[in-house]
């Protein structure tokens, strides 16, 4: 098996580390900060809402098609490079000419290229590390992405505070350059190994000529669907938690920017520390146990938030968010690679999970906000804890182990 035989070259591995770091850096600027920036550009609330909705819809709608697209493009490094260049364009559009047309275009472009970049990165990882090195490789990916997120939040928070909101997007655009540079050493490696992978995949794949049937088989894979449901529930419970908590902190503490920054950065530190361990544990003890561990941290955190809103405690409990984030961040591409890694629909399957996660995240924030408005913050946290517990239960009851065994790998 050419996929597993060759060990990952250290240079390619390091390049992928840097790439993950810079991409995470870049993505920090495109988060909720866009609303802040558009306010400073005298946008009305309605127009900002439209812009963010367009971004959400574009990201959701392009998950699955983008996955399918990445599947048919053999050179994943090129996909990644194009996605990063698209980020450059988006950031510059935001920074230079924030009129509605360009902002909407940038939102759509960003949604689409995020959807191609995620699968492309996972595919490059698979190519570099091989199937059995994937767990450890993804742990490293998550570590460097977390470092990038933390650094990006600190850097861009400072930039927005002390320079200007607009400068954040210039910084974002500038950070796409090192990301592209990090891809350079990956170029030859990925192409060479990708051909090997591709050849082996084509050789191993089910009889060609009926791609539709194989596609259907992958998408109706029970493991994939159950994991998709788990991921959706987890994200549903996880996404609004920080928003709710930090909103109530702003109400209590006068200007909690530092506290909220701590709530964002601390979990990233934990993710950076714990991700490789999560990857190793997934290899040693199986995917299920890592999933159970990470998912269990979520309802626990929700219950603690419901019980107390002491700012110090809140920041401390955010460490649990880091554990959940590390486990989920590593398990999501890993389980998909277990299930679909050798089919030709790895990226499509990733897109499907991404779609489920996106649905969960999009629906939950307004739902949790509604609960908090009508029944209070505590009830909202209880509800999120219940959904999180449901995700744990689903893993416990229905999720099968997907870790490939070396002798069964050739089946």
């Amino acid at each position, binding site marked *: 098996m050419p996929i597993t035989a060759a060990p990952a070259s250290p240079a390619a591995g390091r390049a992928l580390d840097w790439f993950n770091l810079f991409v995470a850096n870049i993505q920090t600027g495109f988060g909720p900060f866009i609303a*802040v920036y558009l306010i400073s550009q*005298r946008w*009305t609330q*309605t*127009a900002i*809402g439209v812009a963010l909705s367009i971004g959400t819809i574009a990201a959701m709608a392009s998950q699955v098609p983008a996955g399918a697209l990445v599947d048919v493009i053999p050179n994943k490094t090129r996909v990644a490079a194009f996605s990063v260049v698209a980020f450059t364009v988006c950031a510059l559009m935001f920074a230079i000419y924030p009129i509605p047309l360009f902002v909407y275009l940038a939102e759509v472009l960003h949604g689409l290229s995020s959807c191609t970049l995620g699968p492309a990165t996972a595919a490059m990882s698979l190519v570099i590390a091989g199937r059995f090195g994937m767990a450890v490789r993804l742990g490293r990916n998550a570590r460097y992405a977390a470092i990038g997120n933390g650094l990006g939040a600190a850097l861009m928070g400072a930039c927005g505070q002390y320079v200007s909101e607009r400068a954040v997007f210039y910084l974002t655009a500038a950070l796409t350059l090192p990301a592209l540079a990090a891809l350079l050493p990956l170029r030859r490696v990925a192409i060479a190994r990708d051909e090997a992978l591709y050849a082996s995949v084509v050789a191993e794949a089910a009889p060609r000529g009926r791609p539709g049937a194989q596609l259907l088989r992958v998408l109706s894979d029970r493991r994939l669907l159950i994991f998709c449901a788990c991921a959706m529930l987890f994200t549903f419970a996880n996404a609004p938690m920080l928003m709710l*908590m*930090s*909103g109530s902190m702003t*109400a209590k503490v006068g200007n909690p920017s530092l506290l909220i920054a701590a709530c964002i950065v601390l979990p990233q530190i934990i993710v950076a520390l714990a991700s490789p361990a999560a990857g190793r544990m997934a290899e040693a003890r199986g995917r299920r146990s890592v999933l159970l561990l990470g998912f269990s941290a979520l309802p626990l955190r929700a219950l603690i938030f419901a019980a107390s809103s002491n700012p110090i405690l809140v920041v401390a409990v955010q460490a649990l968010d880091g554990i959940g984030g590390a486990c989920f961040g590593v398990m999501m591409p890993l389980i998909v690679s277990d299930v679909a890694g050798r089919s030709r629909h790895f990226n499509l399957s990733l897109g499907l999970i991404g779609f489920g996660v996106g649905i969960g995240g999009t629906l939950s924030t307004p739902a949790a906000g509604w609960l908090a408005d009508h029944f209070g913050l505590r009830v909202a946290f209880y509800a999120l804890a219940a959904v999180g517990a449901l995700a744990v239960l689903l893993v416990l009851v229905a999720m099968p182990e997907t870790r490939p065994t070396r002798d069964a790998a050739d089946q």
Partner: protein
Amino acid sequence: MTSLRHRLNVAMLTLWTLSACHSLPPSQLPETAPASNAAPGSGAAPGSGAVSGSDAASGSEAPSQPSQGTTQPGVSSNAAQPSTDEQPSTDDVPNTAPVRIPACLPTDNGPKPAAKRKAKAVVHSQPPPTAPVVEPLPTAVADTGVKRVTVPETSVLGRKVQGPRGDDLGRVVDVLADAQGRVRIAIIEFGGFLGVGNRRIAVDWSLLKFHPHDADAPVVLDVSRDKLQETPEYKGSGSPVAFMAPEIAASARPNTPH
């Protein structure tokens, strides 16, 4: 569900205004304020209505005369008056589009060809047929419009808000008017980090102090942090607004200072 529908509606509306806004040159933006001001003025009292009517007549007779500008003070004083009557605005649809235009305000940062402006002016002369009373106003508006452009303080959206000691309190993100069109409440967003954990509160308009000479200076909100935190979060214009009032008997307070 309803909120979803509302959001969709809003989206459609904004897209519509977007297109409208792009078709109109930026110089038309200022027109919105004078138009709404003048219109209420005509309805406020029979006397003023007659005045604006005469304005209208003279305007229609000789729109190209520069001397028309001298009669304009009447109009501008109208504009300065608090307008209590909004009837005229309801019957001409075009008005609603301009009012929404702030969504596109950033547009007028960009350079615009002068030729377009002229073309717009031509377009602008068309609306009058619908309502004869409104017809004269556009010409008067064109003059006031020019003045307005030189005074950027009309843009309150996005303005920074400072506390009594110059501390950063956030930005004005929305301005609410009552049924009569009087500006009553500013929505201020503060707190948060990179957009996470922001909080919005509604503040009585009269609490905001504007710098008399520097239009770009931050607005000052002279209240303590405790007061800010007491004020409940603003949840959007669909729900009843609890706002920070100058005194406790907010509803019983005297008329807004004109």
